[in-house]
């Protein structure tokens, strides 16, 4: 892998940028690998990358039905934060946040992690109680998260409407300064490049259509649109499609898949310095480096794999955006799109071994897994390599739904993203 640097750019500029090598290769699938990862999203690619770099396992294939990074990794609003309530969640999301800081250097790929601060708004007494509970728990978990008055919130985000006359006035906010955004595509590409350089095969346009098991139940490989590919370990990291693939292995999951939409405005000069989330009025907004306002909407109410959603969902979100930022009514929506998110009953992910020997699953990130990408890949690689979960992901089992030991971020706050 040739290193990227400003000198490399200058060198290439002299020769019309013809000397760049492929960021990742596109090999033909081999008959068999040590590990197969299903799904070349950020989580799958990061898993492969850490299998190679941390565990020295490089005979790995990442199988992707479309193009790498084309799933939710390529269609999310890129909010990164770790100020979750429960210890288990705080553990995994903060593990990821620590990896975000330094990821560009680690990958030699600028993923543009930008700790611009994530503000979550409180609009009523109940919100204050819930958000302060987070602030206190975060502090004792060593996670930065501060409480802001409405005035301080406005100072941090000048477009914010803090008028008491607003329908749901801002009564305060939390701020995680280490929170922010990153360039979604770069994350997928950076991990792909890193993994590919270490020998991992990334095989696109290769859809997994079946999971093969030996008579003893153990995994032997997968059927794909490009034929059978053998492996004794298969990690399923397919976001919205996870239950579809797990079904192929005979495992029924506590998952439902919903369309989640987002939109961008036309680009404008910098007006929005941070990330603002309001769960009560349902709005999530930041501004990208290119200048668009990036706005997250809610899910549609029904299970769907269609990657599109209803106009009324966007309406609902823009209502809220224009209520909180009344100067944005004249802004224009440039593009809207949808992704399919896999939602668990407690809104926490599943990162675990499964009842099928050799089969591992990393799913259920729902509306908020982009932020976890590096951490998730890191501990999932551990789980696969050692056939044993890392302490950080040990609580995120499938069995918790039978025993009742949920990690109920939904009940605690029901915050998306």
């Amino acid at each position, binding site marked *: 892998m040739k290193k*990227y640097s400003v000198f490399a750019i200058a060198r290439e500029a002299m020769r019309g940028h013809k000397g760049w090598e492929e960021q990742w*290769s596109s090999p033909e699938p081999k008959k068999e690998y040590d590990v197969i990862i299903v799904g070349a999203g950020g989580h799958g690619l990061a898993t492969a990358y850490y299998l190679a770099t941390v565990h020295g396992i490089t005979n790995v294939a990442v199988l992707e039905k479309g193009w790498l990074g084309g799933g939710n990794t390529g269609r999310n609003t890129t909010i990164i934060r770790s100020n979750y309530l429960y210890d288990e969640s705080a553990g995994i999301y903060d593990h990821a946040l620590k990896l975000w800081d330094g990821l560009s250097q680690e990958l030699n790929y600028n993923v543009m992690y930008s700790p611009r601060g994530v503000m979550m708004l409180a609009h009523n007494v109940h919100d204050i109680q819930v958000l302060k509970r987070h602030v206190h728990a975060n502090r004792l*978990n060593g996670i930065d998260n501060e409480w802001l008055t409405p005035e301080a919130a406005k100072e941090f985000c000048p477009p914010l409407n803090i008028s008491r006359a607003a329908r749901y006035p801002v009564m305060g906010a939390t701020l995680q300064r280490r929170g922010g955004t990153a360039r979604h595509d*770069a994350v997928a590409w950076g991990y792909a490049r890193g993994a590919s350089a270490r020998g991992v095969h990334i095989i*696109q346009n290769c859809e997994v259509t079946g999971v093969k098991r030996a008579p003893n139940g153990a995994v032997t490989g997968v059927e794909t649109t490009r034929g059978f590919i053998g492996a004794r370990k298969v990690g399923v990291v397919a976001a919205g499609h996870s239950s579809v693939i797990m079904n192929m292995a005979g495992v029924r999951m506590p998952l439902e898949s919903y369309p989640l939409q987002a939109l961008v405005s036309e680009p404008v000069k*910098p007006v929005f310095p941070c990330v603002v989330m309001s769960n009560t009025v349902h709005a999530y907004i930041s501004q990208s480096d290119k200048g668009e306002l990036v706005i997250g909407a809610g899910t549609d109410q029904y299970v769907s794999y269609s990657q599109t959603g209803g106009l009324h969902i966007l309406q609902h979100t823009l209502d809220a955006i224009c209520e909180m930022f009344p100067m944005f009514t*004249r802004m224009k929506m440039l593009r809207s799109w949808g992704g399919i998110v896999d939602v668990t009953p407690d809104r926490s992910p599943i990162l675990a071994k499964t009842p099928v020997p050799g089969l591992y699953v990393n799913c259920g990130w729902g509306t908020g897994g982009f932020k976890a990408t590096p951490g998730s890949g890191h501990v999932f690689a551990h789980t696969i390599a050692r056939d044993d979960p890392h302490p950080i992901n040990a609580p995120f089992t499938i069995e918790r739904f039978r*025993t009742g030991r949920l990690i109920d971020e*939904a009940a605690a706050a029901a915050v998306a993203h």
Partner: protein
Amino acid sequence: MIATFRIPGAGRLKQAETARFSFDGQLYAGVEGETLASALLANGVHLVGRSFKYHRPRGFLSAGAEEPNALVEIKRDAARKTPNVRATVQELYDGLTAQSQNRWPSLAFDVSALGDIASPLLSAGFYYKTFMWPKSAWKNFYEPKIRAAAGLGVAPDQPDPDHYSARFAHCDVLVLGGGAAGIAAALAAAESGVRVILADEQPDFGGSLRFESGAKIVGQDGFAWAQGAVAKLGAMDNVRVLSRTTAFGYYAQNFVGLVERVSDHLQSPGRDLPRERLWQVRAKRVVLATGAIERHIVFADNDRPGVMLASAARTYLNHFGVAVGRNVGVYTANDSAYAAAIDLKKAGVGVAAIVDLRDNPTGALIDEARALGIEVNFGRAVIRAGGKLRVSSMTVQPKNGGGERTIPVDAILMSAGWTPSVHLFSQSRGKVAFNDETKRFVPGTYAQDCVSVGACNGTDGLSATIDEAYAAGAKAAKDAGVKNIGANTVKGTKPKVDASESWSRGMLGAAPGAGPDTTVKAFVDFQNDVTAKDIRQAVHEGMRSIEHVKRFTTNGMATDQGKTSNMHGLAIAAETLDKPIPQVGLTTFRAPYTPVTFGSIVGHARGPLFDPTRKTAIHPWAEAQGAVFEDVGQWKRAWYFPKAGEDMHAAVDRECVTVRKTAGLFDASTLGKIEVVGPDAAKFMELLYTNPWEKLEPGRCRYGIMLREDGFIYDDGVVGRLAADRFHVTTTTGGAPRVMNHMEDYLQTEFPHLNVWLTSITEQWAVIAVQGPKSREIIAPLIEGIDMSDGALPHMSVREGRICGVPTRLFRMSFTGERGFEVNVPADYGQAVWEALWTEGQNHGACAYGTEAMHVLRAEKGYIIVGQDTDGTVTPNDAGLDWAVGKKKTDFVGIRGMARPDLVAKGRKQLVGLKTRDPKVVLEEGAQIVGDPKQAIPMTMIGHVTSSYWSENCGRSIALALVAGGRDRMGETLYVPMPNATIEVEVTGMVFFDEKGERLNG
């Protein structure tokens, strides 16, 4: 002022209507009805903007919605600034003020244009490869710089004074696009009597007929025919004609979003007029007639101001009467640009040469151009445009190499061919198919009840278009399944085409001279500065999917969404990959077709209509008393009633003390109320609540707990049995709708055998809680027909009677621990009865109290609030409410869930009381509790504070908390570490006041 480039006699505007306008502070005159672009061109202005990345000077590429370059800010006043407006769409009005964007200090001299010189360094995706050292520099230095350079216009900074409106509409046939095809389809559909909507984004209908000088329909000029036909349609009862209306999104089941621009073209819109109106149309059938968009040619410096689409030049001439130059060159790969040369030549504009990439084209247009004396060159390419702020020449070379020749021109009209507008078709989830012969994607497989006609369907020729469209319109009407076709209809005939222009195929990808081996800047995507070279580089870097190429180069991601660039980008990628185009495939078309104002999507839902504000019948009284309100769901609830000089704490302390000393009145109207009626009412209650109900006597009440099937507390409330077959159930304020839904769900789907009905009566009854030792004395004088003695009306009972002469359901119950009542009266009487009680109460020194005092009072008694002391992870046992779970019951919702291993395990968090060692210290709600305050971070947290108040009645702070194994820790000392200090607390029972409960009858 007579504009220099206006051609007398050309165009369709009434020259008389002069409109003055300004651009970058300079005053100009134009003509009302033309676009800002047309007016600037008439004044000889071509330089109007700067590109995104290199800040290259840019002019007008088009005359329509596909415009990538000519974006300006339109400013009506300080609050009415709109960035990124297409000058080619904005209509002129007298006084219009426009400004260029993305340049500093001025449009002609833009410092950032240095980026153009450094551009070899700024190739596709350069930012992924650098700016990583030192680590902090990205956030602190590079990113702010990049951000400042990016973005186009400036976002408005004041609330928008304009308003927006919305309309749902339904029709049998929705026709999108009002060119020849759309009009013909609408005519055919309308004539069969069905409900038709015809919409076009332009102010005038006619589409290509605006510029097609060669079209004649039923003996008229094509555009004139279009106006006549649309006038006829507009006069029909069953037709709605919408101009300036863009169909932006095609959603499931023929649901289409359209935006009508109502007043942006008016000088001073009436105050009643919305700025824009959203139409959400459900159509039985949709006819797509969205036409085709001309493509530019990808050659070096093809972005110089003055280089534009050939059809745009024709529109400026034939529709607006404006010449885009005095000496134009034409560069084409198809026939249609010849018509531009011919029209301009005939209007007296010099045509320096036509350069045609094709080797030996033939046809009437070519002959005509020659006959007019225009120089025509075949098999040649324009390899470069000269000039900087305005094109000054074109350099021509045989396409396979050879001698160059530079021809001076002041405009270049180009045409690589036409791309069918399959955007909406694709949004409807239809699959396009590539026609290899004509090199275009056309509608292939349909996914919804729609049909494409005309140019968007790849149909060439006006005659064929009208045939196809007319037939499709008639069929759509028939398929819409309307029975009474024929009744009340004007039978029409298919419009006859007398003359038309011919359209031929063109080329895709980079033109000769633009690669693959050169380093020229041949633009594919103008706004985002994507060149042919960038696309090739992306492929070389391993981007084999067109989706990767798009994202790596940003081709097609600008405000025009690649209307002119996507096909070229695709062709260049395919060529570089050495794959056929259909194998590389298109990127996904997404809504909106063109950018849509947030305000239009929001419509009426702003300010007071953002979300309903629910107020109780007693609200006006509380407001008059100066109450401060809090939001609980959609409700406004009186939070506290400050007297002069009181802050919240003083008010709440006084309210709390007064209630326990004498009495207080509290508006409890927002509590959810459900009337459960039917012979099986008690059976139903048994199943929905943990408590037993069968034996509850009529006239008595019980506190009920409702679980979800998973065993966690879902809601609670007091339930009164009015009769054997009638319960009056109350729920939490926020829980009312979901509890009703939960009950209906079980009743309709799990227990349908039960004869019970549920009716929401939340809003039927206003509820006045009167609590305190004097409560009975306050109420009794107003009551008729109810014996209020303790014997006749014990705690937890309910009676029906009258108060102040109106019906009441009078509950004896308490959420304060005092003797208490809840007076239910029909809502319209709520305020009057409250006032009567208030008057009585005044005699006893009672006060009005709000939700905050209510919270304190109930916490003093250890009563929980679902949603505050519980959070969806708390079982009845956790909350100390085991007594409310019917031990002998064999079934109720939640019975199994709450027996799951983890829910009955040891060490669960249980609700307990907390007393701070220092009684003056009030804990913060949400604060975390630890056993060992000295441990290092991350600490082991064993619980958190759910409720915490200063209790004036107890003379100390009180708190409730969920603590692991809490009930076994009575008397234990725990710690609440705060940022500045660690607070010591003692675990106690949950009741802080009147532990024996004697005051209920006191």
